């Protein structure tokens, strides 16, 4: 199975729906800032508005940390608009909804289910150079958590800035005190 970490976003050009208007989005639009590509199977389905709405709830926080959100499905931008017109949840979405009817993006990221013409629930965090720094792919019915995604983007940004000069912490209450590890070399 291919590992996508570090892979650079390939050139693409798709039509998108954003805040009542249509626009063209290409690779260049995703460069210079952090980006999340958020694939979902199709418009007008039940779980999708739930997690897309969840993502909208955190959209301002993503923007605060310099990260832009792009949802992607294999629908056209016209269908995105129709969905926004029909759904209160989708109507309030402020981030850009990419239309990928030809499967260009979904195929590039390995989430296209060809026989169904739908994308798996894949989330890809790209750095400002357009390289994949983290990703997760869920099967169709398994929803995602926008708050956890925000944490991952923040972690990716931190590592990009500081390298490995921090220790990730996973707190285990009640853990035993570690035996002292005295190493005064360089300190005295």
């Amino acid at each position: 199975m291919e590992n996508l970490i570090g892979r650079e976003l390939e050139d693409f050009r798709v039509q998108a729906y954003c805040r009542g208007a249509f626009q063209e989005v290409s690779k260049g639009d995703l460069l210079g800032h952090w980006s999340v590509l958020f694939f979902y199977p199709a418009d007008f389905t039940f779980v999708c508005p739930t997690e897309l709405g969840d993502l909208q709830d955190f959209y301002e926080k993503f923007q605060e940390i310099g990260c832009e959100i792009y949802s992607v499905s294999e629908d056209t931008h016209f269908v995105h608009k129709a969905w926004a017109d029909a759904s209160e949840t989708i109507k309030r979405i402020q981030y850009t909804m990419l239309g990928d009817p030809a499967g260009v993006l979904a195929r590039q990221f390995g989430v296209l289910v060809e026989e169904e013409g739908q994308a798996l629930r894949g989330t890809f965090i790209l750095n400002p150079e357009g390289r994949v720094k983290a990703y997760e792919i869920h099967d169709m019915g398994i929803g995602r958590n926008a708050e956890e995604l925000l944490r991952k983007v923040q972690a990716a940004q931190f590592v990009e800035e500081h390298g490995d000069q921090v220790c990730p912490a996973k707190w285990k209450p009640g853990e035993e005190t570690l035996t002292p590890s005295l190493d005064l070399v360089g300190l005295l």
Partner: protein
Amino acid sequence: MIDCMQISADSPLLDEKTRETIHGVFGKLNQDVVIKAVVDMKEEKSLEMASFLRTLTELSDHIALELYEPLDGADLGMEISHLPATGLFFNGEYTGVSFHGVPGGKEINSFVIGIYNLAGPGQELSKAAVKKIGKLKRPAKVKVCVSLACHHCPGVVIACQRIAMLSPLVEAGMYDANLYPDLVEKFKIERVPLVIINDKDVFAGPRSIEDLTQLLLDAK
């Protein structure tokens, strides 16, 4: 005050080799320091810390130990909201240097070096760094959140506490975040070292003493 003599001076955390090394460092101390610790003798970590300190202070005549119950520790002038809390006192005054939790793992280094910097010759420090610390004009309370396995953490603890020793306006405490879920929750601690200034500004990762001083100068 708790009678220190009732506390074991044979902490299992300090093996013979470690005691010998610390004894060597403490042999360079040329002034007296008093360690005052607030411990809740009903709690395991406090008992562990009491024995750790009792064992450590046996390694130098320049170090005295005083143990207090939480109710008696309120007047010491140090932060005691997270126990066990241990402060370093010099010439009868609180230095602003504290440790919250048991400084095991990598943090033994910051604890030993903290005492060495306070009551011994101390680590070399550039004139420029001292001058910069002298520019601090606003009070600041610094929490350095660590995990005991973090090899980047002691350096930040040592640097912040050095600033506290040189500036009467600054207090700097090491906090073993593993012991204090309220801090983990409040400051969303996912990585260490994490420097928190005045419970407001949060900075992660290792930094030099000059950079840490600058953060304090910039703090509102």
